[in-house]
């Protein structure tokens, strides 16, 4: 439904900055697509090119078979009403109440727009706003001003406002980056609900892997204006290809700690002769810790789990275990072969 074709953006200043370089991206109807990258990677520039807040220097943007990059300003404004957008700093209007903020994008029926079928009467606006307020659970704040709301509440208002014209796509530029972890969760839950109940496609950008893990179906990892890695969240988490992806994943689990401990020659990482330390990663339902006890029985090896991290992503377990095997050398080797046969990824951890 949304397609970026070879899209680039160069900012011309004292020196030219290639903020986005030749990005090709297709986003399916109804999915939640996440873009992650460090500051300056070009995420905001890319998401802003979807609704042409930023005009691409090159390339095309297509939504539902319409090439946005070929439209004039007036046609573009019409399309933008069907693309909601929320921001890190909410961007609500101080001079308007919550209800008035939400009503802002709705075209009012006025005497010069008497026969405009897209214009809303006062009554219709009132009902729509009430409905949206209920959706974001802020019915009691209709007549408050933004200054009286917390960050999370403000973002809920921004979401309601973005949904006012029943958009097909919702763009979220760091929508939770100014919020505490708990509020972040509640906003993510609301976004998921919006996606599932209203069928709205969501494109979000973030620098927190936790956000991706929480609600995204697919993820793109951005660095230096390019999408370096792209895929289903589960696949990318289970088997990251790029260093930057690994680094991001490392931020959400404690497994990376083991490498530090090894470096520091921590006691638990010191191996006795004949022992091997491995990192096991698995992401299928049939694999689980029982496999390890089974193997240790079958091959007469001891498996000492010194570190573990298991989480559930899209209802699938994603496990990472650091295990020290001890036993006969050939037995350990066979045990590892068996694990590999069961679709467990085995990585040797080099120790001193």
């Amino acid at each position, binding site marked *: 439904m949304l397609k970026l074709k070879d899209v680039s953006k160069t900012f011309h200043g004292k020196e030219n900055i290639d903020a986005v370089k030749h990005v090709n991206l297709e986003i399916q109807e109804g999915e939640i697509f996440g873009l992650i990258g460090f500051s300056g990677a070009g995420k905001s520039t890319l998401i802003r090119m979807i609704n042409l*807040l930023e005009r691409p220097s090159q390339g095309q943007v297509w939504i539902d078979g319409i090439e946005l990059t070929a439209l004039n300003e007036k046609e573009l*404004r019409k399309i*933008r*009403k069907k693309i909601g*957008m929320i921001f890190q*700093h909410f961007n609500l*209007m101080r001079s308007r109440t919550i209800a008035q903020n939400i009503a*802002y*994008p709705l075209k009012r029926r006025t005497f010069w727009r008497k026969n405009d079928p897209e214009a809303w009467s006062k009554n219709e606006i009132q009902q729509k706003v009430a409905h949206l307020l209920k959706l974001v659970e802020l019915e009691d704040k209709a007549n408050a001003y933004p200054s009286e709301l917390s960050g999370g509440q403000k973002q809920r208002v921004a979401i309601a406002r973005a949904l006012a014209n029943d958009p097909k796509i919702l763009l979220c530029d760091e929508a939770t980056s100014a919020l505490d972890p708990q509020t972040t969760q509640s906003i993510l839950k609301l976004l998921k609900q919006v996606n599932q109940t209203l069928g709205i496609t969501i494109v979000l950008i973030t620098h927190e892997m936790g956000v991706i893990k929480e609600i995204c179906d697919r993820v793109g990892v951005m660095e230096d204006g390019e999408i370096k890695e792209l895929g289903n969240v589960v696949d990318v988490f289970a088997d990251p290809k790029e260093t930057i992806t690994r680094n991001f994943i490392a931020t959400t689990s404690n497994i990376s700690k083991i490498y530090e401990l090894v470096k520091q020659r921590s006691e638990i990482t010191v191996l006795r002769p004949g022992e091997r330390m491995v990192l096991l990663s698995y992401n299928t339902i049939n694999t689980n810790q029982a496999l390890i006890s089974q193997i240790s029985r079958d091959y007469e090896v001891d498996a000492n789990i010194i570190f573990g991290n298991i989480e559930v992503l899209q209802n699938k377990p994603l496990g990472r275990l650091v295990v020290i095997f001890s036993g006969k050398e050939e037995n350990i080797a066979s045990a590892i072969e068996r694990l590999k046969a069961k679709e467990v990824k085995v990585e040797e951890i080099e120790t001193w």
Partner: protein
Amino acid sequence: MVELLIQIFPNLAKLGDEFVEAIGDTLQMILFSGAASFILGTFFGVVLIVTRKNGILQNRLIYNVLDKAINVIRSIPYLILMMMIIPLSRILMGTGIGVKGAIVPLVFGTVPFFARQIETAIAEVDKGLIEASQAMGSSPWEIIFRVYLKESIPSIARVTMVTAVNLVGLTAMAGALGSGGLGDFAIRYGYQRNMTDMTYASVIVILIMVSIIQMIGNLIIRKTSH
């Protein structure tokens, strides 16, 4: 009451009618030139904001011409500016003296100052808001009226108040060129005929006007800030 006033300001006895007329003239000057300056100043202030670099209707030529014109006019001392404008006033208003003749010079003296103030006031509107409304499909017109102007009402009230007080001062100065009004009155009687009490009376009325303007301004700011 009248008796008491005449005791304090003895010359009011025979100049009373003329004094009241002078107050009326000053009020008229403030009202007409104020209204014209408000509309023109707001217009030019908005033009500056939307045509500046990265503005919603960026236009270097318009911005630069307007920007320079404002700077030039503002750098001319007001008395000289007034004299320079008298011919223009004759063309536009048919006269260069009296209340009617004072309006054009007052507007010229006020608009550049006010346009700058409006520009500064509107510039305070968060860039993110403009971006959000563009993302919602707002047209430049909507952004000007429904975002820029609406969001800056408290700031506009504040700068309008400052400018109005300034304008009261200018009307008094216009008196030097025979515009009528309290300034003229104070010069003619208080200064040239040494009726010091008439100078004081004029000053007091001007102070009252300034206070009323500030009261109204503060009330609007308080009611519109959220």
